[in-house]
């Protein structure tokens, strides 16, 4: 059972990793936290779940739509909470994006109701049994899609002009601007990418948990925040590893201790990390944490 629980933990961590990647992209670009990303993931997942379960839209199409919805919502969040706020006021975007998140939740509950929505199984009756280990078809989809998105993001950031521009703005926006990089467009692109990842994360998490609820937005944000703090602000590899670690810790705590202690142990893990290694387990570059 331990091996199965470890696999369950890794799969849970995979869903955390995508939303943490999404968080880290924004931190990298703006040195700011977008507290509406959890709700962005939620609204994308709710819309996609409704399309799949009520309009019989194929999962692949709903998945693409979840990326688009996430991208649009994140772009709107950027315009509402970040674009026109002076960099002098560090807390303003935090409060403003929190507010956007509340508005999104309110709009979703008023439009679609407050019930959780079922995400139908994609590959029914598909199971892979390797001795004591069982992986369902849906779990495999989650793993493959998450790995694919992470890989594509890596390639985009490291092998394309726009990716290089994002990394440049992330390292030093002023110098990038002086070198002719369209900084505002790059930041908008970063938010769009971040929203698309959040949308994907929302639907894949719904697939993993079988349901999506309009009230999970802030909880998702909180989890992502713990992941990025543990992995190191702005560090994409660190974020992935921290997400998997938190997923495994949560799963093993539920299986062998008690569900009541699940969040407590994760909070302790994050708190101890902050005391012993304030920059997180990994650091992308010196000074990022300080700048945030």
């Amino acid at each position, binding site marked *: 059972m331990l091996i199965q629980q470890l696999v369950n933990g890794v799969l849970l961590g995979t869903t955390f990793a995508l939303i943490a990647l999404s968080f880290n992209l924004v931190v990298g670009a703006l040195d700011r936290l977008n507290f509406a990303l959890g709700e962005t993931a939620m609204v994308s997942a709710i819309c996609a779940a409704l399309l799949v379960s009520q309009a019989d839209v194929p999962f692949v199409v709903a998945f693409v739509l979840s990326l688009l919805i996430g991208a649009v919502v994140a772009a709107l969040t950027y315009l509402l909470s970040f674009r026109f706020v002076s960099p002098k006021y560090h807390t303003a975007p935090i409060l403003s994006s929190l507010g956007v998140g509340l508005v999104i939740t309110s709009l979703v509950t008023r439009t679609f109701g407050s019930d959780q929505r079922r995400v139908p*199984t994609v590959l029914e009756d598909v199971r892979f049994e390797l001795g004591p280990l069982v992986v369902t078809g849906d779990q495999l989809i989650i793993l493959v899609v998450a790995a694919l998105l992470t890989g594509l993001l890596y390639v985009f950031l490291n092998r394309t002009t726009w990716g290089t521009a994002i990394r440049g703005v992330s390292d030093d926006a002023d110098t990038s601007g002086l070198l002719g990089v369209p900084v505002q467009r790059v930041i908008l692109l970063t938010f769009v990418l971040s929203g698309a990842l959040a949308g994907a994360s929302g639907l894949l998490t719904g697939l993993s948990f079988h349901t999506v609820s309009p009230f999970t937005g802030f909880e998702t944000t909180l989890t992502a925040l713990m992941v990025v703090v543990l992995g190191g602000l702005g560090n994409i590899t660190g974020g992935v590893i921290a997400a998997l670690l938190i997923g495994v810790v949560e799963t093993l705590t539920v299986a062998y201790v008690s569900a*009541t202690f699940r969040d407590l142990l994760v909070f302790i893990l994050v708190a101890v990390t902050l005391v012993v290694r304030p920059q997180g387990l990994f650091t992308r570059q010196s000074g990022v944490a300080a700048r945030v």
Partner: protein
Amino acid sequence: MRRAFTGRRAAVAVVVPLLFVAACGGSDDNSSGGGGGDQSDAGPYKLGLVYSSEGPFANNSATARAGANYAVELINADGGVNGRDLELVEVDARNDPQSLVTAIPKLVSEDGVFAIIAPADSAGCEIACAAAAQLEVPAISPGAGRPGVLEPSRPWSFTLAQPDAANSIPVLSAVVKQEGIKTAAIIYDEANATTKAQNDLYTKVFEDTGVEVVSTTTYTSGDPSFTSQVTSMAAETPDVIALAAGPADAARIAVEVRTQNLDSLLMGTGSLQSGGTEYLNGAGDAAEGTITAAQFNPDNPDQPAADLLAQAREDNDFDVVPLNFSYAFDIVNMIANYLGDNEVEATEDSLADDRQGLLDYLQGETLEGMSGDVKFAEDGTGDRPQLYAVVTDGKFVIQEVDS
């Protein structure tokens, strides 16, 4: 006295001939059945309605709220009570104990409500009813079923539900024997008083029937993922998985159980049937075969319940009338009937006596309504039939317990 409290104001055309059926003892000094004197200048009768839009039993709360509003709508459309409208003063406690504690005094002192329709969930009811009792205001819950939930607030509180223990223990014990169950797993939220009580209930059922509990696992209400818990239970391959959970959580557990290819029987207490719609919608096919204790028959063939249920289905576009809906509907009608029969004025001077009169009325009568017959026991809980329900083709199908 057996009293049908529904027809005069609700479902008038359908039910009027069925009103005020056989008397069966008790005083009968207030059975005029008329609408009472015209007090239309006195303003509406106000009733408090406390619900929670959040928490594990939010859906039960929502259906109860809908039932109360439906009753008020029908009564007011039929001319109100004593020429006065009924008005619900609603408070959303959002599953927050502090909100409950502050909401009740406000309802009583600022809004001047005559009585309170308490939260449908036991945890909320316990707090709200205790606060109402301190102010000597009657509070009636359309669903609280945890044993002892009314103890701190008697004699001012009632619940239309029979406690889970009184109803579910004998019913589930019979089901366990009937199904030949040998091993069981229990899943519950140890931080939630209601699901903890359900865990105790299951433990008692399995002890009494000689069933071995092979796995006990916990969750936190609202947990999105139950993969870890179900993996732990699956390792023991229990004959039955006992769900100590609100309907939304139970639905996610059911889906995960079937996803992991576990064919254990799923079992719930009466509260799972009461939140049945959310469970069925959330779990889909995974809910098929689930067995729960039941105390409410949404297809009750007896009058006046049958006609009231039919009208509620038509008016509210229900496939099945939810338990909390019918209980809340009945509560409003009970109070309305008391107000009408006694021509209660509920003025500042008479309020204390009027509220005491409501207590006596509730404690003394066998009342008939949408939810069937109910007589309140000495501890304020409803005395209900012992039934069980099996999810078949996406619906709870009510059956009689064999023994």
